[in-house]
C-alpha cells in the first residue's frame, strides 16, 4: 500500500486530507507539526510527504531542507494557499525542484495531483 504522510497544523485540514486519501486507498500518517514530521519520517518511510508551508514552529521550508539533508530521495510536495512564486526568492528556487498542491482543493484535484507526483 502506498503510504502518504500529511503534515499540517490545522486539525480540520489534516482530517480532510486523511479522509480523502484513505478513501482512495492510501495509507495515511498524519502529523500536526514540522517537528513531528521530522521525528517520524525516517521510521515511517512514506512514499510521499504532503507538507504545509506556513506552520507555527518549524515552517515547511525548514522541514523540507532538513528532510532533503537526511534523505535526498524523499518525495515531498508542498501544500500552499499562496500563488506559486509568492514566497521568498530563495524559497522559490528551492521550490522549483519540488512539487506543490494548491489549497483549497477538491478531492478530485488532490487525488489527481498526488497520482501525478507519485508517477
Amino acid at each position, binding site marked *: 500500500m502506498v503510504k502518504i504522510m500529511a503534515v499540517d497544523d*490545522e486539525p*480540520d*485540514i489534516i*482530517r*480532510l486530507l486523511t*479522509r*480523502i486519501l484513505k478513501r482512495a486507498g492510501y495509507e495515511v500518517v498524519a502529523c500536526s507539526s514540522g517537528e513531528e514530521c521530522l521525528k517520524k519520517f525516517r521510521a515511517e518511510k512514506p512514499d510521499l510527504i504532503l507538507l504545509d508551508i*506556513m506552520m507555527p514552529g518549524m515552517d515547511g521550508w525548514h522541514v523540507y531542507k532538513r528532510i532533503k539533508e537526511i534523505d535526498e530521495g524523499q518525495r515531498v510536495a508542498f501544500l500552499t*494557499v*499562496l500563488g506559486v*512564486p*509568492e*514566497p521568498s526568492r530563495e524559497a522559490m528556487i528551492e521550490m522549483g525542484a519540488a512539487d506543490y498542491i494548491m*489549497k*483549497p*482543493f*477538491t*478531492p*478530485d484535484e*488532490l487525488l489527481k495531483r498526488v497520482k501525478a507526483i507519485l508517477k
Partner: protein
Amino acid sequence: MDLVYYFVVALAALLFATTALMVLSIRRTRELLTQVKRGEEALMRAHQRLKSAHEELKSVDKLKTDFMNIAAHELKTPLVPMVGYLHLINRKKLGPEDRESLDIALRNTKRLQRLVDDILDIAKLESKVMKFRVEDVQLADLVRDSVAGARPFAGEKGITLKAVAPRRLQLVHGDPGRLAQVLTNLINNAIKFTDRGNVVVEARARRGDVAVEVRDTGIGIAKEDIPKLFTKFFQAETSARRKYGGTGLGLAICKEIVQAHGGKIWADSEPGKGSTFSFSLPIKGKALITTE
C-alpha cells in the same frame, strides 16, 4: 660692489618670496585637502544615509509582503476544509432538497473563493508587493490559448468566439501567467455581457507596441460609465451585479497588471451594440515592468 650687493638682495628677496609662496601653497594645499576630506566624509555620510534608507525601504517592502502572505493564509485557510468537505458530501446521493442546499453552498463557496483571490490580487498590485516573472511573451499564442480556454463558456451561452492573430507578433516582455489573467478576464467579461452574436479577440502589431482588442456584440456601456469601469467594485448599474455576478475587481486588476508592464488599457462602447476592451504592451526592450 654695488652689483654684488644688489645681486645678494635680489637673491634673498627671491628666496624669501619662494619660501613664502611655498609656505602659502602648502597651507593652501592643506586647506584644500581638508576640504576634500570633509567633502569625502559628507559623501560617505550621505551614502550611509542612502544605504540605511534603502535598507529601511527594503524592510518596509518585506513587511508588506509578509503581511500580504499572512492575510492570504488567514483568509484562505478556512476555505480549505469548506471546499474539501462540501465536495466530499457532493459525491453522495442526496434527496432533491439536500442537493439544492449543497449546490447553493458550493456556488457561494466558489464565489467567496474568487472574491478572496481578487481582493488579495488587487491588494498586492496596489501595494506593489506582487512579484512578476519576466519572460519573452508571444501575445499571439496567449490570445489563441485564452480563447481556447473560454470556448466552453461561449458554447454554454451559444455565442461565437473567435481569435484573430497573425502566427507571430513581435515579442513583449512580461509575466505570461498574469497577462493570460488579463486576457481571460476581458474575454469572460465579453461573453458574460453578450447574449447574442459574437466575441472577437484580435491581436496586432502597431508602431512600438502590440495591441489586443476584445470586441463583443453585447449590452454595451453608457458613455458616462466608461471612465469608472477600471475602478474597484464598480459595475454599471447595481442590478447588473446581481444578474451577471462577479467581484467588481476584475477590470481594476487588469489595469494594474497592464500598467505594471508599461502598457495601457481602455474601453469603447455603444449601448445596445457592444463594447471593445483594448490593451497595448510595449514590444520587448521598451517595457517598463516594475519588478526586481
